[in-house]
């Protein structure tokens, strides 16, 4: 037998145990650990790293004392007052752009990193698999940015999201199209061009139904793979059909390719709507903004006037990344704020208490950084107060153009391109 325990060591071990036990109540507050799953490599890495930077800014805001950010949740005072000033620690994990990796990372964060809650995962198709793991382990998962309809149709009890969802988005576009039709723009035929994973497929389906309900004719639907090298044929299909409105549901690389190819083939739809994701990526404006003049996008983010809360947050983000905050990263950041606010209100890191606090969430517009009408979850976990306005590429930036009461610039039609 090998002697592993020497009696001579006993006193020192005893004192060690005692010291640890004594230091616990007096020691530093426990930290709240949140796992954040984003595409930090792969084709969507630019969006993922933007979301990561945004969440890091949010962590700074929460952990530090920021008196200048108005009523934004947890900005004033350092840390979480509900947990004796505990600090938030975020463990980032790379989903590599694949649902399988997202699922593995969720499992690792829960079982090895012992996170108290999860957020992410940008691509709806990956949020789908990652949140299923959280559900199985009874860990709250809040997505700030994934919009696919079926994420909240699974009867999950631990899944919440703050973003406007596919149905809200379709409603916004339809209301917009009706209004411009009323003002004399021709909106007889609509084309839907969507990437073919969860995000694009889901939005396309909801758009198709909404168009039908509102009496718009969807003349052509073009699903495609986002990871494509060439989109000439798709653009030529559009050119053949010549629809009055084209709605793109794309990620970044494909949004850039479409814009470049449309210019090369000399095709301009009268009205071009680029649904968020790819069109909201800061890379989009930088690479092809100059030849996408007049592209319309949805957003709940507005930098606002100098000195305002949103303006100051944008400054913090800009200092970190060199870019203005975009809508997608902004929604991820807002989701994170809401999650931490619920943990603070729960006063505990117990998953069930966080879940209960999330269900009781009732935030007012003044407590948010995004332009939602508030945050309040329904039974499925959707934010009933989420909303979006429409923005348009004018010059080298997006400006708010619709609805009129939120507009900072005039809507310019038709699509100008280059």
């Amino acid at each position, binding site marked *: 037998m090998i002697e592993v325990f020497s009696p001579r060591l006993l006193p020192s071990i005893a004192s060690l145990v005692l010291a640890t036990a004594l230091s616990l109540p007096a020691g530093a507050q426990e930290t709240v650990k949140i796992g954040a799953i984003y595409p930090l490599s792969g*084709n969507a890495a*630019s969006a993922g*790293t933007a979301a990561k930077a945004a969440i890091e800014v949010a962590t700074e805001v929460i952990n530090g004392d920021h008196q200048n950010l108005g009523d934004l949740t947890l900005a004033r005072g350092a840390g979480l007052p509900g947990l004796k000033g505990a600090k938030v620690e975020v463990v980032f994990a790379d989903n590599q752009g694949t649902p399988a990796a997202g699922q593995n990372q969720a499992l690792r964060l829960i079982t090895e990193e012992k996170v108290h809650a999860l957020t992410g995962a940008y691509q709806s198709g990956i949020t789908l698999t990652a949140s299923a793991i959280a559900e199985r382990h009874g860990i709250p998962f809040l997505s700030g940015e994934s919009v696919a309809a079926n994420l909240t149709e699974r009867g999950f009890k631990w899944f919440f999201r703050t973003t406007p969802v596919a149905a809200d988005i379709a409603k916004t576009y339809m209301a917009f199209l009706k209004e411009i039709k009323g003002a004399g723009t021709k909106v007889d035929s609509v084309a839907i061009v969507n990437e073919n994973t969860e995000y694009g497929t889901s939005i396309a389906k909801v758009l198709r139904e909404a168009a039908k309900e509102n009496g718009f004719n969807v003349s052509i639907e073009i699903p495609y793979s986002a990871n*494509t090298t060439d989109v000439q*044929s798709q653009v030529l299909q559009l050119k053949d059909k010549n629809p009055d409105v084209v709605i793109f549901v794309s990620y970044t*690389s494909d949004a850039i*390719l479409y814009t470049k190819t449309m210019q090369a083939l000399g095709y301009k739809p009268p009205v071009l709507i680029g649904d968020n994701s790819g069109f909201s990526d*800061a890379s*989009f404006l930088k690479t092809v903004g100059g030849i996408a003049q007049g592209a319309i996008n949805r957003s709940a983010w507005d930098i606002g006037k100098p000195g305002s809360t949103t303006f100051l947050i944008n400054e913090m983000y800009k200092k970190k990344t060199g870019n203005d905050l975009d809508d997608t990263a902004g929604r991820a950041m807002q989701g994170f704020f809401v999650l931490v606010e619920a943990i603070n209100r729960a006063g505990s890191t117990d998953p069930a208490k966080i879940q209960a606090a999330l269900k009781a969430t009732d935030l007012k517009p003044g407590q948010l950084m995004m332009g939602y009408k508030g945050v309040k979850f329904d039974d499925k976990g959707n934010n009933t107060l989420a909303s979006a306005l429409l923005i348009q590429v004018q010059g080298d930036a997006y400006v708010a153009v619709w609805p009129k009461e939120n507009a900072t610039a005039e809507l310019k039609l038709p699509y100008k391109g280059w």
Partner: protein
Amino acid sequence: MSATVVQVIVGGLLLGAVYALFSSGLTLIWGMMNVVNFAHGDFVMLAMYTAFVVWQLLGIGPAGGVPIAALVLATVGIVSYFALVRHVMRGPMIAQILGTFGLALLLRYSVFWGFGANFMSLPDNLVGGTFEVLGVRLQASRLLAGTVALIVTAGLHLLLTRTPLGSRMLAVAEDADAAQLMGIRPDRMQAIAWAIAAGATGIAGALIATFFYISPTVGETLAIIAFVTVSLGGFGSVPGALIAGLLIGVIESLSAYWIGAVYKDIVVYSLFVAVLWLRPQGLMGKS
């Protein structure tokens, strides 16, 4: 045939020429030494970034970007050969695969670290804009890439079949030991093959950068097509890569136009499997 179909075919041909261009380097290395270079796509990516940096620093387009990228990549090729490939070639096949795959990740994440994940792009009209010939719209940048693809392919083919250097390289490819007995140094020939292959890839990348986006993972997207092109054309056959590239480009474009974009891969890969079933050595490969 409607004007649009002509446009689709012309677009497919130009696309195919580019596929051929960035596949020629891969087929050369494959044919020369039976090494599958999994870092090939990332060589293309590196060349695209080189072209971007050249434009940013010197303000010149492909006129400067192409030769500089060719030189930079040829150097990368030689360094990769001496630092990595020469050693893993002595090991089992799996060592080659993992070795070059490791190189791919090293290059990809070095660029990630240096340039960040953001997408970049060269200005749109760096190589003239677009013009119309007989009702077909042509983009100057793609036309340039297509033309250079033909020249490079022809050049590589002539180099291999009509020059003493080419004969020596092919001799090494045929039987390195026998070549050595004839006074040819296999090591040197293989290093030259890597330099030429990577250099050609450099030209390809710098030209693709004029009409494509640039990102650290762009090589991943392009590499799959390069592998398909090379296997379809025949391992080691430069003209085979050209024919396969053009074929894939046109079939892809037509099937995307007629059947739908999501089905184009099914059409291309079914054809690919069918050809390999009938001719496992590829269209122009030696059996």
